């Protein structure tokens, strides 16, 4: 079969190269990324931690607000007294708005910092693996395969990091609120409601952050030349 192919006219060979022939199935992509993440735990711990911190900050703010809103709406006199005692009963919309504005700024800034950190880490991982990337290209990987591998890797860490951050942030907000107004005051309904609001938002946000931060380094990886696989030094 190979021999016949070699005898073909150039036009036939071009025809044979019909588009869509080179492929990297998703199952294999996921497997490759998962292995890579597992094998580079140290490096990725950094990305994991920075995403977890940002997401925790985000979730704790969101949950805190959510629980506060529910508690304020409660008719229970004891809860109102506890809120009063904690200085959290004020419903002044102006100071409220100012506070959430400041919180927003903090969130955006930490998100930006996290973004830069993740980009930097993925970049390091790309430069470290120039030979691996070059080899993949020598074996027939398209640029899109390389982009996909790096993006998925980052998304994996994003999902894990934001899940951890979400749990930590929610726990923090719950404990904090519980300590001010008493754990008994916070009904299960409130907890579930607030959690269901914050959790998907947090995981989606954290994953998107990790993905977006990896776009540029992943493209840089895809631009690497297959000749890089031949480099011997270092």
């Amino acid at each position, binding site marked *: *079969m*190979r*021999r016949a*192919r*070699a005898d*073909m*006219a*150039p036009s036939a*060979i*071009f025809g044979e*190269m019909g*588009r869509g*022939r*080179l*492929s*990297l*199935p998703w*199952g*294999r992509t996921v497997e*490759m990324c998962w*292995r*890579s993440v*597992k*094998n580079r735990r140290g490096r990725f711990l950094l990305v994991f931690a920075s995403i977890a911190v940002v997401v925790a900050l985000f979730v704790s703010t969101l949950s805190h607000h959510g629980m506060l809103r529910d508690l304020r709406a409660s008719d229970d006199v004891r809860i109102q007294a506890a809120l009063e005692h904690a200085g959290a009963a004020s419903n002044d919309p102006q100071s409220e708005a100012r506070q959430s504005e400041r919180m927003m700024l903090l969130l955006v800034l930490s998100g930006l910092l996290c973004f830069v950190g993740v980009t930097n880490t993925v970049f390091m991982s790309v430069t470290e693996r120039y*030979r*691996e990337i*070059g*080899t*993949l*290209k*020598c*074996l*027939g*990987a*398209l*640029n899109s*395969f390389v982009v996909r591998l790096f993006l998925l890797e980052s998304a994996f860490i994003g999902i894990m990091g934001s899940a951890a951050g979400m749990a930590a942030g929610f726990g923090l907000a719950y404990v904090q609120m519980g300590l001010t107004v008493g754990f008994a005051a916070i009904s299960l309904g409130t907890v579930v409601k607030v959690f269901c609001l914050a959790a998907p938002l947090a995981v989606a946000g954290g994953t998107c952050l990790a993905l977006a931060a990896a776009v540029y380094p992943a493209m840089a990886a895809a631009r690497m*030349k*297959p*000749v890089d*696989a*031949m480099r*011997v030094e270092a």
Partner: protein
Amino acid sequence: MPEQAIVHTQDVRKTYLMGNEEVHALCGISATIHKGEYVSIMGPSGSGKSTFFNMIGGLDKPTSGEVYIDEVDISQLGIYELAWLRCRKIGYIFQTFNLIPVMNALENVSLPMVFAGLDSDQAREKAAGLLHKVGLGDRLTHRPVELSGGQQQRIAIARALANDPAIILADEPTGNLDLKTGQLIIELLLSLKEERGVTIITATHDHKMLAASDRVIWISDGRITRIQKREELDIRVGSIDEATSAPPSSSP
């Protein structure tokens, strides 16, 4: 039997711009490599040997001139076609083995098949067959770090054969191996050439590799200085023997 050209270069030139100065890495190389041949490209570093070698492998494009691989002018190829060519037509072997560290032997060998669209069961089966062929049938699930340099290079050879390429390009395949292991690798390449009729092109400093070659293309200063057939090499066997008895790391 008429010899069929598998690689043909026509007046290939490559010019780099270094600052404001033009550096001519290749100054018009025309050569033909035939199907089923074992060709070594020799030359000191900086001779343009690597540039020429990369061009034959579809890894670099000439500034002017044509490179035909299997009758296709590679300068006409787009990104997709080049990737296809690298996947299906050419098998690469590197000095540093370049196995994917997080994958075991079987996964490394089956990776190019996955790229080529083979389903994973077929790929596994074929990869296992190739690993048996290179003598690593009992190391299928070992990772590269668990294997010696010679074993890693044999996996790399199996991987290079994954999609039944017409050409195997080996860049200093014995460069990181000791004398005896290097010899075994060369024997393996030779047997593949005999069995499968695959064309083998190596860039090397290794005089052991010269003895195995059908032809040797000597390059210096971006030009072919001479092309020797094996018969012509045999005449100089005395001097080659002398060279091999020198420390293996010494480069010409």
